[in-house]
């Protein structure tokens, strides 16, 4: 049995139920599913077609570490499969390998993808409503709108890594890049939507950025597309086996 290693990158931790994929039993078959809410109530959508490799990988880790299959997983902008498992009352995130997802779901008879396209198939522009599924990795636009950071539990440098109890890392893009112009490039699209107050936004497996915004119209949160990450002005890919 292969050893499953803790993931050295960002652990999403507390995110909405809509912000994660899940392997669930659908018609007696394990499938990738996503919770979806377009204002008409919450529903599960199952991925159309293949992607059984991802299902198998998720279940392999879940069964090996937790003793049973099924459950949440994430795919980040580096195409790393990340599988959370609760151990000793806290979530641990395991690395599930590199994947190349192209999830398509069906909603109201039409395909729905996590790529930045509208329901009519037209490409989204920054500022447009994000209509796709919302799984993503949470980042924060810092107050002032001039930096981006994320928080994640700290791991030891040892191999295999383990969790350093009680220690959290806050990683700032400005500290990582050490280049104001690059940071300015990274924050621009998000700040255009969120303003100087900053706040949480998500990056999905296609590098699409979207963020929840309350426009004060009484309709709750609207998710707005902020553009694509620029790999040259972003956090470096975490080291993986």
């Amino acid at each position, binding site marked *: 049995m292969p050893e499953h290693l803790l993931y050295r990158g960002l652990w999403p931790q507390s995110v909405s139920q809509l912000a994660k994929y899940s392997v669930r039993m659908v018609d007696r078959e394990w499938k990738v599913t996503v919770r979806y809410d377009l204002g008409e109530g919450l529903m599960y959508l199952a991925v159309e077609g293949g992607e059984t490799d991802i299902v198998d990988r998720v279940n392999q880790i879940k069964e090996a570490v937790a003793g049973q299959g099924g459950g949440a997983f994430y795919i980040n902008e580096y195409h790393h499969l990340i599988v959370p498992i609760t151990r000793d009352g806290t979530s641990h995130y395991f690395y599930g390998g590199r994947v190349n997802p192209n999830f398509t779901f069906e909603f109201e008879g039409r395909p729905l993808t996590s790529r930045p396209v509208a329901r009519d198939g037209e490409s989204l522009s920054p500022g447009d409503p994000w209509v796709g599924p919302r799984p993503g990795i949470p980042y924060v636009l810092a107050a002032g709108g001039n930096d981006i950071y994320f928080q994640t539990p700290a791991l030891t440098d040892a191999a295999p890594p383990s969790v350093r109890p009680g220690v*959290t890392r806050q990683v700032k893009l400005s500290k*990582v890049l050490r280049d104001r112009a690059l940071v300015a490039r990274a924050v621009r699209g998000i700040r255009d939507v969120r303003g100087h107050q900053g706040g949480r936004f998500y990056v999905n497996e296609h590098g699409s950025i979207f963020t929840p915004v309350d426009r004060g119209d009484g309709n709750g949160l609207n998710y707005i597309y902020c553009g694509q990450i620029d790999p040259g002005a972003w956090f470096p890919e975490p080291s993986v086996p």
Partner: protein
Amino acid sequence: MIFQPEAFPFPRWLGPYSPARGNNSGFRVRSGLLGATVVTESGQEFWTAQQTQGVHDLVQLIKAHWQGGRIVFLPNGFTVKPLQNDSERVLIGRSSDALILNGDGCQVLDFSNLQHLAPGSIWPGPGTIGLESTIRSDGSLTSGWYRPTEYGQEETQEVIAGPNASLLEGFRKARPGENSGRVRITIGGHVTTNRQERNGGSRPYYVGRVSTSVFRNWERWIEGRA
């Protein structure tokens, strides 16, 4: 007070620590004197430490390296100096035995002799000294601190003292109706808390004492000595 300095260069301190809360918080060396600011009815007073060989040695060390500034006495006596902008902290030595503060008048606060202070009574000394912590509903104490890193910062949360019913009782006397809240642990393990007063201000109250033996194993926070 007895002060045992660390060898130079001072090791980095990665453990429990509380940042400055304004220009008058905590212990400071000012004009060659070690002391802390106490808020009294007549205003702010800088209470100074009674001169002992240890206090003299500590002040000389601070003056030699930094001219003056803030220092943090941890409950176990570890003496920590924050460097510029709180960006880094170093362990400069270990303090033990009696630390005595003298007020402007005849007030004296002897940290080794506070048996006369009942839990729930007004804390007669500085309210901004000691390690910031949280007392939980079982009387245990937790502390959280930040440490700048090359990629941003690292935050650590740790239970530094286990459940303690009498300490919790003292906290309830100091802040009636509350079961948890912010406290400070001074050198010698004395615990204080700031209580909101009716006039909107706050005042420090004595909660009780924890044995400094519970803060063992803090050597692991000295860089390179894990």
